[in-house]
Structures are given as structure tokens and as C-alpha cells.
């Protein structure tokens, strides 16, 4: 859980940082997207790196979901009779929403891929015109998409907050208070970074 989560988080972080290129204009953003396809060249053929990365990510996601499912199954088995009086959440809210949060993030990823990678759900939907795709996507009249995106990113933030904290704990590191601070700080940075682009489009910056 901790290892696959960590790898996924590395990707998500790089993705967020890459997104910020949006603010340097269409040319640079599209150029960045094109560059992603040439990483490793000339040793690697065009897009090979991307596919290697995609395979790795998919593996991580599957393993991550697999482990999560087995933990959830174990948890269910460990408590065959549930409490009649549903316990209030006393520990961390983020921790208690990991499973549903994970499912929401997974669904969002599917949509997100169809939208901005494959392009079938994108109103512009042209390969290579990433900047335009993004601008079209978060246009003010499509506010519900932006809202869904924002919600998903916030859920991801929660997921990362507990995930990061929990990963350190699982790897046997650190004291609780420091971990809390680090994890919360990281999650907030991630959320802010991801929200910067759609909010910018919504208010008309960069388009």
C-alpha cells in the first residue's frame, strides 16, 4: 500500500508541477506535452517512455486497489456483526474516507483519461492541442465539469493526506505530530496546484 501509493504520489506530484506550465502559454504547454513523448530519445522510440510509465502506473493502481480491497475484505471479516449505534469518527476524517475516497478518485481518473488523454469527452478534443483542450474543458458554461474536477481533487487531497501520513507510519518512520504537519502541508500544496489551472480558466486568466 505504502510503496504503490508512494509511486503514484510521485506521478501525481510531477503531473501537478507539469500542469503549472499552463500559465506560460499555449505554445510552451503544448511543447511540454510533446516533450513528454520524446523522453528517453533517441535511446527510446517515440512515446515508449510514456507507455512504459503508463504500464508502471497501471500496475501500481491495480496493486494499490488490490491491496486496498484485501484490507477491506479483512476488515469486513474481522467484524461480522456491525454496531447498531454507528460510531462517530473520533480519529481522522481523512483516514475514515480512504475507501470511498479511493473509489471516487479512481472513477475520476477514468473520466479524466477519456477527457484529456483520449479526448472523446472533451469539447475540443484535438491531440497535441493540450492548452486548447484544457481551456475548452473548464469554460465557464461547463462549470459542472470544473466543480466535479475540483471535488475530485479535494478528495484526492484527503486521500493523499492520510495516505502519506499512513505510509510513513507503515514504513516505521517519524512521530505523529510531525507527520501530520508534513502530510497536511503536502496535500494542501497538491490541491492548490491542481486547482490553479481550472480556476484560472474559469476567471479567464491564460486563455
Amino acid at each position, binding site marked *: 500500500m505504502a510503496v504503490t501509493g508512494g509511486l503514484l504520489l510521485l506521478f501525481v506530484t510531477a503531473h501537478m508541477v507539469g500542469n503549472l506550465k499552463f500559465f506560460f502559454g499555449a505554445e510552451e504547454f503544448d511543447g511540454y506535452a510533446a516533450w513528454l513523448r520524446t523522453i528517453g530519445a533517441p535511446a527510446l522510440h517515440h512515446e515508449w517512455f510514456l507507455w512504459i510509465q503508463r504500464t508502471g502506473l497501471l500496475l501500481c493502481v491495480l496493486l494499490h486497489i488490490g491491496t486496498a480491497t484485501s*484490507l477491506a475484505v*479483512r476488515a469486513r471479516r*474481522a467484524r461480522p*456483526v456491525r454496531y447498531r449505534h454507528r460510531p462517530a469518527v*473520533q480519529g481522522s476524517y481523512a483516514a475514515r474516507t480512504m475507501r470511498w475516497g479511493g473509489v471516487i478518485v479512481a472513477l475520476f481518473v477514468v473520466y479524466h483519461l477519456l477527457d484529456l488523454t483520449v479526448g472523446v469527452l472533451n469539447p475540443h478534443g484535438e491531440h497535441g492541442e493540450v492548452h486548447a483542450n484544457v481551456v475548452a474543458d473548464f469554460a465557464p458554461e461547463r462549470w459542472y465539469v470544473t466543480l466535479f474536477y475540483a471535488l475530485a481533487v479535494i478528495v484526492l487531497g484527503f486521500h493523499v493526506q492520510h495516505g502519506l501520513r499512513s505510509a510513513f*507510519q507503515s514504513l516505521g518512520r*517519524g512521530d505523529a505530530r510531525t507527520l501530520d504537519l508534513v502530510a497536511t502541508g503536502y496535500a494542501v500544496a497538491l490541491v492548490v496546484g491542481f486547482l490553479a489551472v481550472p480556476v484560472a480558466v474559469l476567471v479567464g486568466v491564460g486563455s
Partner: protein
Amino acid sequence: MKLTLRVWRQKGPEDKGRMVTYEVDDLSPDMSFLEMLDVLNERLALKGEEPIAFDHDCREGICGMCSLVINGTPHGPERATTTCQLHLRKFKDGEVVDIEPWRARPFPVIKDLVVDRSAFDKIIEAGGYISAPTGSAPDAHAVPVPKPDADRAFEAAECIGCGACVAACPNGSAMLFTAAKVTHLGLLPQGQPERDSRVVDMVATHDDLGFGGCTNTGECTVACPKGIPLDTIARLNHDYLKAGGKR
């Protein structure tokens, strides 16, 4: 004062069990929660009904025998307090109070609110000790122990083995209980020779017994009447990974 209790009644391990409502009046706010159940049981006995079975012994918060999930919270609403030390002044007159047993597969219900917690003994059996047969000990001052280590070991050793951590954990995990012992013994020089085998064997037994996996939700430490800190689990994981690496 008066309370409406909804209590889990279950005749035996095979019975399905159900919540039964009791109105209990004429209570004093100075009563402890268990004394309130005593009063109810006295009344039930005189009416010819079977009293509610519940575990309790020292009634001063140290033996770990009392349990009860009260309104969804193990040991009730007051933090760092066992059920036996909880008093009715923490409840409102006329309040409805739900009382259920610890819920976990490795803690099967024996009757009403009484569960079998021998799984905890099994975890200790697996390695929660230092092998020091009687008579083999060197002088107590032969090995100094740095005070911070001794203090932290003591904090972890305060665990009373009540099982509230399991009852509170959404995964039904006993990792806090296991980690408390691993931490206590692992911090002391005397505990080093068996440090690796201890954590590996205890965790394996924990999993075999059917406890759930830990996802670090932190519910356990909030419910723990002794406030065993969550970072004991980090220590356990650290020792576990290290021990695994050596194997």
C-alpha cells in the same frame, strides 16, 4: 435521574441477539455506569428476569476487564476513562443510551455484553515477553536504561489489554495492542535479543487470529483508556520491516 437503555441481549454464542430497551429511573448522577447496571440487574432479578451479563472486576480502571460500547464509543464518551470509571453525571437526564459488546470476530460474544478476549493472550504467548527464567537475572543495576527509554517503555506498558482499540478500529485490528507490547519490550536493553522474532511472531499470530489489518486510522488511540500513542504502531512497523530484511 432517569435513562433509557437499549442493551444488547444475547443468550449465548449461538443466539442471534437483539437490542432490548429498559427504562431505569431513580438514578443518582454520582453512580458509576456499572453501578447503574447493578441497579438494573437487581431489579431484573427481583422480577425474575435474567440480569444482564457484563464483564468487570477491579472497578478502578486498571484490570482491563470492563468493556461496553456506549453510544458507539468504546468505554463511553469520556476520554481516557474506562467504563468502570465513567459516571452518570456525564449523561443527561432522560438520555437514550445504547450499550453493545465489543464487536470483532476474534472476540466472540459469550453472553449479552461479555466477549471472549483470549485472543489477546495468544498474541502475548507468541512473543510478548522477555525470556528470563527465574534465578537467571544479573543485578538490577548491571544494565542502566536511559530514562527517556524507560519512560517511553512504561507509557507503552500501561496498556491494560481491554480491547477498546479493537472495538474502535473500523478494520477490527489489534495493532495498537500488539504495538504497545512490541514497543515496551523493544525499548529496553533486556528486550533486544528477541526483538526481531517477537515482532514477526506476534504480528503473524495477530493476523492468524482474524484481526483486521491496520490502516492507521487512529481511532484506536482515541478510544484507548490509557492513551497508548499511535506512534507505537510506527515502531512496530519499523521493527517488522527490519526483522523481515534480516530474514
